[in-house]
């Protein structure tokens, strides 16, 4: 193993330019893939924190007798996934609106009658805080004759989900492309090293070296390049993250949530992936060379 590693390190040093190119390519790929993973992870966190605040408003038709309200509340409470139901009368709703619009009181001053409907504010159990469950509940609420309209922020929720999905798909596509590019460049580097050492490899074969003995240093070389590329890429990602997170946390998130760096598991996962890129490039190149 020591002999193989020494030969691998010697190869890297002998072909510095090629090795540096390979390591940089892997680093850039890791940086981009890591940035996408980081974005998706934080977007997911935001989604989860928003989901926790998900509530469904069921607006009632006018003039429903007060006696029916209690019965209706019990029916809604009995629906699957409902954690909590609170009745908000039209007067209470107006009071809330007024308190929210303290700075523009004149807007509500001239109202001759309360235009707001009575409503139920419904909160969901944790396991039902997802789009499908919310939509199912909304459908069931809509089917109640006393209910005029149901609102749960479906438009922004849909849009946000679409944007996240778009980013996710773009991330996968970019990750895939950079993965292929990195594998291709590693394979090319190893191929060039092999080409420059073809005579040496031939001599090794003639003196009785096995395929394993000949190939092992190349695999180690690929793995070293993968690890170095991965570590440089992740370090760059961390530095960029620190710079960006300082600005973002002070501005956009306003203390609602904190953005976080990759978990140790994701960090190691990306590092293993970058090693795999090095190994795969080497494998493809050696397979071709063996033929």
């Amino acid at each position, binding site marked *: 193993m020591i*002999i193989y590693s020494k030969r691998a390190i010697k190869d890297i040093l002998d072909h510095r330019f090629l090795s540096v190119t390979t390591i940089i390519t892997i680093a850039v790929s890791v940086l981009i893939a890591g940035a996408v993973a980081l974005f998706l992870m934080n977007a997911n966190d935001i989604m989860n924190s928003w989901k926790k605040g998900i509530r469904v408003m069921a607006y009632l038709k006018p003039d429903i007798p007060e006696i029916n309200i209690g019965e209706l509340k019990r029916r809604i409470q009995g629906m699957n996934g409902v954690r909590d139901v609170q009745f908000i009368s039209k007067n209470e709703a107006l009071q809330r609106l007024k308190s929210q619009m303290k700075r523009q009181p004149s807007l509500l001053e001239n109202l001759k009658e309360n235009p707001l409907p009575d409503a139920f504010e419904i909160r969901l159990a944790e396991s039902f805080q997802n789009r499908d469950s919310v939509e199912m509940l909304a459908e069931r609420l809509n089917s109640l004759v006393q209910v005029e309209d149901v609102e749960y922020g479906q438009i922004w929720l849909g849009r946000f989900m679409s944007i996240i999905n778009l980013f996710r798909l773009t991330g996968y596509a970019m990750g895939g492309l950079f993965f292929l590019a990195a594998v291709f460049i590693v394979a090319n580097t190893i191929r060039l090293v092999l080409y420059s050492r073809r005579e*040496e490899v031939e001599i090794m074969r*003639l*003196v009785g070296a*096995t395929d394993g003995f000949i190939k092992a240093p190349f695999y180690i070389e690929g793995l070293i390049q993968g690890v170095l590329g991965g570590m440089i890429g992740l370090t760059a990602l961390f530095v960029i993250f620190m710079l960006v997170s300082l600005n973002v946390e002070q501005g956009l998130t306003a203390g609602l949530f904190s953005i976080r760096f990759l978990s140790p598991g994701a960090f190691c996962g990306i590092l293993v992936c970058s090693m795999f890129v090095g190994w795969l490039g080497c494998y493809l190149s050696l397979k071709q060379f063996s033929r």
Partner: protein
Amino acid sequence: MFHVHKNYGAKKALIDVTLDISKNEFLFISGPSGAGKTTLLKLLYLGETVSEGQVLIEGINLSRISHKRIPFLRRKFGIIFQDYKLIATKTVFENVALVLEAMGKKRRFIEKKVKSVLRTVGMENNLHSLPPSLSGGEQQRVAVARAVVGDPKIILADEPTGNLDEDSADIIFELLKRFHIRGATIVIATHDKELIRKTGGRAIHLKQGRLQTTSTVTV
């Protein structure tokens, strides 16, 4: 070697060659350039495969040997190439040590054995030299050291003195004789008839790919 033919496209390099080499024999393969001497050696160490016929080494049919066993078969041989085939970027020590490293020997053993063999061929003062900085004779001595360091049963030498002056050639031959005495089978391809006469042993003569004559020279 039974009724061996070797073709390179339309060119016939060896035609119906049958040859038996005994254990611990000192055999010369002579003939002019292009007679098929190198091809014959290559067929022995599987540098080439036969077009027709059979080559058996210690009962193993080389046409049927699996790819994985080839390296282990080659370890039975010590090969001295006409053009030395030393790795220019490796030192003398590293070139010779490569054989033992490939065999998976321990570092301490390699160090000891390589130094001992290089002492035998008179190259102990050039351990860290690179082959291009050595003379032809010195390179050939390193090639001999590499060929014998793994204690092979058979040493194949292709024109081992072809590029050397008389003194260097004598040193190389003395070394080969010494390994022969220790029990190795020696097969030497050469066009130098004077050398065969001086050394003695069985000699086969190839001409245009055919085995012409077999003679035994007694010194």
